[in-house]
């Protein structure tokens, strides 16, 4: 029995975190967020060199064959530094999907490209977490029709994995005929999302093992764990920023961090967020080691960490006072990242309803 990170995992986090601390600066984030692409090529390439894209790729395909927990620890660092790079969909959900349901050939072709950053896979499955505007994608005669809102990491995508209305998964080239990609602007300009419209779009099915949507469910669970990890990292950073600011800023001849009201806001953030680390570890660990608990655990992690993250985003901004409301410190990038993650792959209310259904019918 050992419920903690291994030395290797701590090293991994330190190395990814250390790298991002040096490159994903507020200036860099600002530059990327105000630019056209919600992605810093420089950071993406740097992370790719560190090998983060191949964490979940099996060793036989040249990857590291590591666990979802390792990917979550990386994602936590990405969230911590609000790094403007695709990861969750591309290196996370897509690899899980290919691992689960991809054909040998699909894996052989795509895994090396994902590892090197040559391929970047977007994911279109938000309807599985609740369809807006009655959007759906249907499979007819081997081609896809319909639309999927809020596809992830669309901006830089070379390929997509698309989930149809029956849970079937399909590979679609970003430049496929009959595929229209419309970028969507969100509060969070560090990740890209968009709408995909399909009209007779050629698609390559992931292998038929996937008939009952099991692979899709696993992808979704992995995506939720990673989104939770991203929020966890961002919220942790917001607490640290709030504490640091409160120890600098003076009003009435006292550092504001000496006021009980400010101390207690910080304590409430920390007390709420600290157990979220354990919840995340458990949810990520379950994906590999306790499959029967994994889906529920991913729902608990995503919904609970979203709620606590939202609380931290708000309180940290309050501790910063007026300057926290401006763009000056860039604090709002973290705030918005948490707000974006909250709705991603199902908001807390929707996910809790799903969790109840899973348990109690």
């Amino acid at each position, binding site marked *: 029995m050992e419920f903690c990170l291994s030395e290797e995992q701590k090293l991994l986090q330190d190395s990814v975190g250390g790298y991002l601390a040096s490159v994903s600066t507020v200036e860099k984030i600002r530059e990327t967020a105000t630019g056209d692409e919600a992605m810093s090529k420089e950071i993406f390439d740097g992370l790719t060199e560190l090998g983060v894209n191949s964490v979940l790729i099996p060793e036989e395909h040249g990857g590291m064959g590591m666990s979802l927990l390792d990917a979550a620890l990386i994602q936590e660092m990405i969230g911590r530094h609000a790094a403007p790079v695709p990861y969750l969909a591309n290196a996370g959900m897509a690899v899980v999907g290919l691992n689960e349901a991809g054909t040998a050939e699909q894996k052989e072709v795509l895994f090396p490209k994902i590892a090197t950053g040559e391929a970047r896979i977007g994911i279109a499955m938000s309807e599985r977490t609740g369809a807006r505007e009655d959007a759906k994608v249907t499979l007819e005669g081997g081609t896809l029709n319909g639309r999927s809102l809020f596809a992830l990491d669309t901006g830089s995508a070379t390929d997509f994995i698309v989930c149809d209305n029956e849970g079937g998964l399909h590979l679609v080239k970003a430049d496929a005929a009959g595929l229209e990609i419309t970028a969507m602007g969100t509060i969070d300009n560090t990740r890209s999302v968009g709408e995909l419209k399909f009209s007779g779009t050629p698609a390559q099915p992931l292998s038929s093992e996937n008939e009952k949507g099991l692979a899709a469910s696993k992808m979704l669970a992995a995506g939720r764990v990673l989104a939770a990890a991203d929020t966890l990292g961002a919220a942790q950073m917001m607490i640290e920023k709030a504490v640091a600011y409160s120890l600098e800023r003076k009003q009435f001849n006292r550092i504001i961090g000496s*006021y009980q009201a400010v101390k207690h806001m910080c304590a409430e953030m920390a007390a709420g967020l600290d157990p979220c680390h354990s919840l995340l570890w458990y949810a990520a660990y379950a994906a590999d080691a306790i499959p029967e608990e994994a889906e529920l655990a991913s729902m608990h992690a995503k919904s609970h960490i979203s709620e606590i993250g939202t609380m931290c985003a708000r309180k940290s901004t309050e501790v910063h006072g007026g300057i926290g409301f401006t763009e000056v410190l860039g604090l709002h990038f973290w705030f918005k990242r948490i707000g974006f993650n909250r709705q991603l792959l199902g908001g807390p209310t929707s996910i809790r309803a799903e969790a109840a259904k899973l348990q109690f019918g």
Partner: protein
Amino acid sequence: MDLKLSKEYEDFRQEVRDFCEKSKDQMPGPREIGASDPKRQAWQKLLIEHGYTARTIPKEYGGYGAEPDVLKSRIISEAFTETKTLGGLSNQGISMFVPTLLELGTEEQKKRWIKPTLEGTHVWCQGYSEPNSGSDLASLQTKAHVEDGMFVINGQKIWTSGAHESDMMFCLVRTEPDAPKHKGISYLFFETDNPGIDRRLLPNMTGAASFNEVFFTDAKVPMDQIVGERGDGWNVCNATLKHERGMLGDPNAAGTRLKTIIDMMHEETLDGQRLIDNPVYRDRLVQLQAEATAMQYHGLRLLTASIKKENPGLSRLIVKLQGCELNHQIASFAVDLLGELGVLYGQTPLVRNNGTWQFSYMYDLGLIIGGGTAQIQKNIISEHGLGMPREPKVGQPKPAIPA
């Protein structure tokens, strides 16, 4: 207890409504609302003539000259809102500088400045806060010394709303550096395009920019552009702050927001189910409704107190804290209702209402912080409303200055 208006007021309401209806053609369009736009200024004059703005400002200074009547003011505001009629100009000159002059200005100052302010010839901003003086405003460090018969200002202000659109500024500066903290401040006013004044927009997290930083480098101000005595600026400013606190928000605003949300819940679906049919959202909606109703009638209670010239004490002190929090909660609910659509922002496909709920969610957080943070509000409520002790002064690194 009587929620109905007497005939006098019902008639007045009808009169205002009639005015709104029949004057629509003179109303400036959406691109003519700048204070300096001639159509806007003509509209402003029309409103003053009818007493629908600057209502209680004496005639000799350019106002309408009516006796204060908060109920009529409320009726005007409601009638303008319901008929979607553009109301009188609002800027900190009209809401704060003019009342301050009326209370503490010289006759000459009143004659010179009030009328053009009311008419939109002058637009004002307020220079109080500084980077290191927010909650602790009296610690402000922007200085003015006297040179060649002029005040010469050096320093920096922040959170100066609308400075980029204002030609005038009223401002607190430290003129007596050796006096105690609260007694060394003067209340000056001056043109914002003076040499030595540099205004820079300070964008906020919503992406919009309404605040400014204002930097002063040897900016010169004539010695008579001061309200009150030298060193008495803290008292002058508090007279003004009293007016700011005196402004009550629209108590129906939260209810109006919720109505918009209810419409949205009827239109939007999730997995084919209308949001209004989702029991969890219904529960959260009714919670907010109840609170909005409480705040709405709380507003009527305060209005009544104001009509009767009674001091509502604690009841007034809680309005900012509860009102801002409620609005923030409402915006947060709307974003959650929209889910992934709720994070869309700006001009973008599928975005609802230009992302107004996301905007409110952030902006309302700014309002929770601005104008006295929630924490300062709770201090005020406990100290002034409940008679609990003031925050102790501790750990002053410098020798204590009598305050």
